[in-house]
């Protein structure tokens, strides 16, 4: 057929010539008047016009949505679109980072696990190697809990090398600052649970292992981190000290050290804040090192932030302030931002809070983009691992994403003659332990506290082993292509910024 031949000839020409020459002799197809066709053409044009940036990445911002599986991204995109009144167009919505020009798939298996936990996955991004589940900042020679091996096989992180190279560095999270993902920027440990000294077994302490909170405050690289904000206050204050926010509660440290006070004393122009009012009052022009600990344990879910006792900033506000502070350094900065509780809501089997936190991550990325020059800032958005969350059934466009699957106005049912929700989990707290699954006919599944049903009853829904997305913009973002090992993220960040080279030359 001449038609096929013409296209084939065109394709050959395109391979030899610039893409624009090819566009001229395109065939007119019957479907070309269809709006979806126009959309496809617009996308083609946009991608063809994309110019790769091979300049140096002065700044790097790595956003990690903990547990932000690809279905979570898709569901959050629809959820946000529906909240914004897009109706049956909500499926066409995109989160801020989904508009980034480049993306890849990240394989999340670890050196010993088909399915990962958050410790070695964040460490893979920070160190460029995969390592065993439960460990942070060490090689695969280390068994979880083996303190001595951990000390012997510790490897430098991107943040540490950035500090050594004279860049400014920061880590912010909505989880505890000592939790696995943020810890991977600054800590090395054979066990992710060693968050405070009370969690360190005696033999590990005797062998010289330090708890994670202490490692943050004592970080020996450069002049120490410029920004560290999140939850987990109890791990930084002594068991004898009253918590400032919750009456009757105290810290957990056995060594009597108040690490918040040590942070303030360690360097000039250092500050510690623990509530929103103090956070808002921070003048970045007068502050060089900022520690924020806004909750005893994790910070609130985005959906519950208004209920916080003393008030706390949201992820977007923390991101903005961090960039303002870090940008003071003419050499550039490295910042990790974790939306740490997408994962927790999934573990609870509660899609609503997982999606709200994902939308907040999108807002934080948007806030970051408004604060940096994308010509010299590499922004990466990814997840550490997946969850058993899925979007299923044959729901019509515009069906409430939190609702029952409906088609043509009719509620769809399983073979048990009961309706089912669009969102669900393979396992978790939403399963009936004995007997049949609940009939959702008269249940408001869109209520914030509703737990999606699952198959296997488990007190905590599990992680999953499917790939997660990497979305990137800025210098060398085009190096994210195809399906890659998670540790590849480190290699692109380092190639784009030359941070390890700079650190080695210091």
């Amino acid at each position, binding site marked *: 057929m001449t038609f096929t031949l013409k296209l084939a000839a065109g394709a050959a020409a395109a391979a030899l010539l610039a893409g624009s020459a090819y566009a001229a002799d395109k065939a007119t197809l019957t479907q070309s008047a269809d709006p979806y066709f126009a959309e496809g053409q617009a996308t083609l044009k946009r991608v063809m016009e994309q110019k790769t940036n091979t300049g140096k990445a002065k700044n790097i911002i790595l956003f990690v949505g903990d547990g932000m599986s690809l279905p979570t991204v898709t569901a959050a995109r629809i959820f946000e679109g529906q909240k914004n009144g897009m109706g049956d167009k909500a499926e066409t919505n995109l989160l801020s980072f989904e508009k980034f020009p480049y993306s890849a798939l990240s394989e999340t298996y670890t050196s010993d696990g088909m399915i990962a936990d958050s410790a070695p996955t964040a460490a893979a991004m920070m160190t460029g190697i995969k390592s065993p589940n439960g460990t942070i900042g060490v090689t695969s020679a280390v068994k979880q809990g083996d303190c001595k091996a951990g000390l012997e096989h510790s490897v430098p992180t991107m943040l540490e090398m950035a500090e050594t190279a004279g860049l400014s560095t920061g880590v912010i999270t909505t*989880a505890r600052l000592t939790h696995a993902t943020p810890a991977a920027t600054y800590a090395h440990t054979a066990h992710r649970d060693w968050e405070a000294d009370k969690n360190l077994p005696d033999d590990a302490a005797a062998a010289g292992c330090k708890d994670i909170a202490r490692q943050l405050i004592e970080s020996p690289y450069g002049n120490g981190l410029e920004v560290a904000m999140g939850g987990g206050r*109890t791990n930084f204050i002594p068991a004898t000290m009253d918590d400032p926010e919750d009456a009757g509660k105290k810290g957990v440290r056995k060594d009597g050290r108040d690490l918040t006070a040590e942070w303030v004393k360690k360097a000039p122009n250092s500050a510690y804040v623990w509530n929103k009012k103090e956070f808002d009052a921070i003048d970045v022009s007068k502050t060089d090192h900022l520690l924020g600990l806004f909750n005893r344990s*994790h910070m609130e879910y985005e959906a519950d932030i*208004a209920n916080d*006792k003393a008030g706390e900033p949201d992820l977007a506000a923390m991101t903005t302030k961090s960039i303002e502070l870090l940008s003071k350094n003419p050499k550039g900065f490295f910042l990790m931002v974790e939306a740490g509780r997408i994962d*927790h809501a999934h573990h609870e089997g509660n899609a609503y809070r997982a999606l709200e936190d994902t939308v907040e991550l999108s807002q934080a990325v948007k806030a970051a983009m408004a604060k940096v020059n994308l010509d010299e800032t590499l922004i990466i958005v990814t997840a550490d691992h997946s969850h058993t969350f899925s979007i299923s059934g044959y729901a019509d466009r515009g069906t409430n994403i939190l609702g029952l699957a409906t088609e043509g106005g009719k509620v769809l049912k399983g073979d048990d003659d009961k309706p089912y929700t669009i969102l669900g989990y393979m396992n978790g707290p939403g399963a*009936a*332990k004995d*007997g049949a699954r609940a009939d959702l006919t008269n249940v408001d599944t869109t*209520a914030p506290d509703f737990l999606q049903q699952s198959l296997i009853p488990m007190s905590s829904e599990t992680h999953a082993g499917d790939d997660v997305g990497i979305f990137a913009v800025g210098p060398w973002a085009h190096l994210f292509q195809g399906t890659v090992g998670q540790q590849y993220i480190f290699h692109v960040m380092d190639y784009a910024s030359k941070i390890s080279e700079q650190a080695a030359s210091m």
Partner: protein
Amino acid sequence: MTARLDRRQTLNVIAAAALFTAYRPRPVLAAPPDLRIPDLYGARMAFSDQAKALTGKEITLAGFMAPPLKPDVKFFVLTRMPMAICPFCDSTADWPRDIVLIKTRDDIDWVYFNVPIKVTGVLELGTEVDDETGFVSEVRLVKAEARTL
């Protein structure tokens, strides 16, 4: 929002077959006010006016029974959402703020953590540290009886 929980009564109908031995039919007098845990709180986790007004009085609270801290005790934690463990907490000290300590009249028949229940008891507000367990509570229902729906 009470209606929402009422609609959830259908949840886990089968599991609800396990009734509490502690449950005794109550005399049909004026039914105690039917509340949800969020009704006890106002802005920033301060107690609501309704909660303050009902202190010392018998109320009914809907929620879920967290698994026992240990067996053979006459207390349990009532949670707003099903919560088997606190998978993201490092100790029992890190439970969510809006839990209610339930001290029961009789022995407890434990039910699975995601089975909706209602508890009737006398409302107490204010910090209390349990002598035996060291458990810190802000809200309690005492002389309580629990039942599945």
